[in-house]
Structure formats: C-alpha cells, structure tokens
C-alpha cells in the first residue's frame, strides 16, 4: 500500500491535482482576505476614522496622475469604434445613429471599463507593490507595534480615494471619448458634427449616466481594495512583491469584468 501511495505521489496526475488544490486554496484565501479587509475598511469609514490629508494625497494619485493615460485609452477606443462603423452606417442610411452608438457604447461600457483597466495598470499595480514592499520590509509590522491600525492608515485613504476619484476620471475620459468619436466620424464619413452630436443627445439617457457613475464608484472601491489586500498579504522578499503585484492586476481585471456583467444584467435587461 505504501508503495502504491509513493508511486501515485510521483505521478503526473498527483502533481496536477496538487497544483489545482494549491490554486484553489490560494483563490479562496485571497477571496476571504479581500472580503475581510473590505468589511474592516467599511467599518473604519463608518466610524469616521479617516485621515483627510492622506485621502487628498491619494486622490491626486488616482485622479491626476492617471488622467492622461485614461483619456488616451478611452478616446482611442471611441475613435476606433467610430472609424469602424461611421462610414458603413452613413452608407446604409444610418448616419443619424452613429453618435448614439458611440455615446451609448462609451458611457455604458468602454468609458468605464477602459478607465478601470487604465487605473488597474497604473495605480492598482503601484498600490499593491507599495504595500507589499512595506509588508516584506516589516514596515507594516512596525505600524502595528506602534499602535496604529494599518487598515485605517493604509487601506482607508486609498480605498476612499479610489471610490471618489473613479467617477470624475470616467466622466472626463468618456467626454473625451465621445468628442474623439465625433471627430473620427466626421473625418471618415460625410457625417456633420451637428448630426453626430444631435444623435448623441437623442440616444443618451440620464439613466445610463447614473448607472455609469454607480459602476465607477464600485470599480474604484474594488480596484483599490483588491490592490491593497494583495499587497498586504504578500509574503517573502522581492519575489513576493512581484507575485502580489501580478495578483492585484489579474484579480482586479477579472473582478471588473465580472462586475460589469452583473451591472449589465441588473440594469440593462
């Protein structure tokens, strides 16, 4: 029996199952950590344990430093969409719907999701590596020994900044996206600016904007929370920082896509 067990442990099937078990264990551990930290952050926020100076500093990081790249990505996406469809739609007699299509797509989807991806790449990864470095160099232990709550000091300002700054970033980026789509449409087809923007206003509802803002608040909260948590649970040295950063980016991307699906089902079906 022992021999069979030893033989099985060396087999590829066992190794594969072991890897799968480790991955599942890591998934549930990370998910649990994110949920627990999320509740702790909310508890601190509702208890008023907020360092306003830190929130403002982190908001500048979220908003100002990410804005150029966010605007670029969202605008490019809208321009690409407009270039792909404007010519053909005008030819088919649907020129009056180009603005509507670009605006609806930008406000409902690309504006928010591309802003989320840009924030994850620029800010989420930097948050995770910053906190992971603090973890592996015992700075977080030092915070705890000095009697300061690391959730209040590290998480709350970053999560609040993410939650509060994501909507304005998304609004500015989406506005640029719609304008960029208009410019592209008029360049590749015979559509006029006036026709494009009339079409934008005819198809865009306040409801769409409200849902987009709700999405932005949620995504900002989730990105900052996941990034901080992945950094906070980092282990080891430089390798641990790298793993934490990658994990933060992957988890944030997946979370945003899943949340997007949930929002679409909940608000547009």
């Amino acid at each position: 029996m022992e021999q069979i067990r030893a033989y099985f442990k060396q087999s590829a099937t066992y190794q594969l199952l072991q890897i799968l078990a480790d991955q599942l264990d890591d998934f549930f551990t990370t998910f649990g950590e994110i949920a627990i930290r999320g509740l702790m952050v909310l508890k601190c926020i509702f208890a008023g344990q907020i360092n306003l100076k830190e929130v403002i500093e982190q908001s500048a990081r979220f908003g100002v430093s990410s804005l150029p790249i966010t605007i670029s990505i969202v605008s490019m996406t809208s321009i690409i969409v407009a270039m792909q469809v404007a010519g053909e739609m005008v030819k088919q007699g649907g020129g009056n719907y180009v603005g509507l299509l670009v605006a609806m797509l930008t406000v409902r989807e690309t504006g928010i999701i591309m802003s989320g991806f840009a924030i994850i790449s620029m800010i989420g990864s930097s948050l995770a590596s910053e906190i992971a470095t603090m973890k592996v160099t015992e700075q977080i232990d030092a915070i705890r020994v000095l009697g300061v709550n690391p959730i209040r000091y590290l998480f709350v300002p970053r999560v609040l900044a993410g939650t509060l700054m994501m909507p304005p970033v998304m609004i500015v980026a989406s506005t640029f996206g719609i304008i960029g789509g208009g410019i592209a449409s008029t360049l590749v087809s015979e559509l006029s600016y006036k026709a494009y923007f009339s079409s934008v206003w005819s198809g865009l509802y306040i409801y769409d904007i409200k849902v987009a803002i709700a999405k932005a608040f949620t995504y900002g909260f989730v990105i900052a929370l996941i990034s901080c948590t992945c950094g906070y649970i980092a282990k080891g040295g430089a390798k641990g920082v790298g793993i934490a950063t990658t994990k933060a980016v992957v988890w944030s991307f997946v979370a945003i896509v899943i949340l997007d699906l949930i929002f679409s089902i909940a608000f547009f079906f």
Partner: protein
Amino acid sequence: MIKVENLVKKFDDKTVLNDISFEVKDGETLAVVGFSGSGKSTILKIICGLLEKDSGTIKTSEGDIAMVFQYSALFDSLTVHDNIIFALTERKDLRKLYSSQDLDNIVREKLKLVGLEEIEDKFPSELSGGMQKRVSFARAIVTNPKTILYDEPTAGLDPISSTLIEDYIVRLKDETHASSIVVTHQMSTIQRTADKVLMLYNGKSVFQGTPQEMCEQGNEYTKQFITASLNGPMKLLTE
C-alpha cells in the same frame, strides 16, 4: 516587567517554542541567544502582539511595548521627523495631545538621545545603516514604552557602529527604566547590554543565567555557542 510562562508556539506541525518561561524585571535587559531559526524573534513577535501564541501566559507592565526591528523598518516614504512622530500623529489616543511645536521638540529630544542632530528632513534612504537603526530607536521610545524589544539590533553593522548601538541600548534602559529583551548572536552585545541570558535550541530553553555564568559554567550549549564550535550538542539543520 515581562513575565513569560510556559510559552508554546507552533507553525503547522513544527513546535518553534516549547514551554519557554522567563522573567525580566523593570530596568533589566534579557539577551535571547541561539541558532538562526531557534525561535528567538518569534518570542519578540508574540510579546508585542504580531503573532498569536498557542499556549502559555505573557504579562508585561502597563504601557506601550516598543520594538526595534532587525532592518530598522523605517517608513521609507516619510522623513526622519515624520517617522519619529508617527505614533503621536496617527494614534487616536495621542494625536490631539501635541501641537506641531511640541512634536518638533520631541523629535529633537529623541534624536539627541540617540546621538543624532539635523537629520529631521532626511529620508531613511539617505542615512547609513547605523543611523537608520538609531532613528528606529528614537521612533520606538517616542511613546515612553515600558517594554522595549530589540530584534538583532547590531545585525549588519560594523564593530564600531555595533558598539555605539550597544551603548544606546544601555542608555535607553537607564533613561526609560524599561524592561528590555535583546535578540542577538553577538557575544559583545550580550556582555555589554544584558543582565540575564536565555539560550534557545530547537525551541527549548537550554540555559538561563547571567552573562558571567554563561561564560564560566560548564554548560555544553553555551560552551559551543561561545567557542563557535561545530562539535557539541547543537547541530545545524544542514547536518
């Protein structure tokens, strides 16, 4: 006062600390020595609350517990000034007690105590290892702790800087009358700073006594440690 009784700590199936007991009176310093991985730092982390114990009791004097970390653990995004006043500005119970003038004075006073001046605006990366260590001393004592824990305070320092750090450990003990525990590998640190020595091997206490007794008694473990011999009851993990 620090009183530890029957302390047990396990990581998974491995017992890192097995029935450890000791007492450090006010104003006393205990040196904890032993091989790497013998559980020395784990004792400190349990006392200051960074790790949970599995069983046993720990009693410390009322008041703050400070810890000086092996690699200083200064906040690299904050200046020396902000590192030192961190607890005073971030702790709910302390943050409204001091004006900005008070905080400046505290920083100057604590830096003077560890022999540093005019470095308030520097960042940790601009300081030498010895200076970082002394700033971490200043940060640790800012809340006037009754218990101070030092995790290998002279690790990575040259002999002269090590002597300086040892002098400051003694000076801080005299100034604060706190109970201190110093985890160390160095005999000079034991002889210059400690009143008592606890030696660990495989998570068990194999010697407790004064530094003098450590050198004079015929304990096989301490003899091997002092002579840095490979022959003796303690075996390295690679053997």
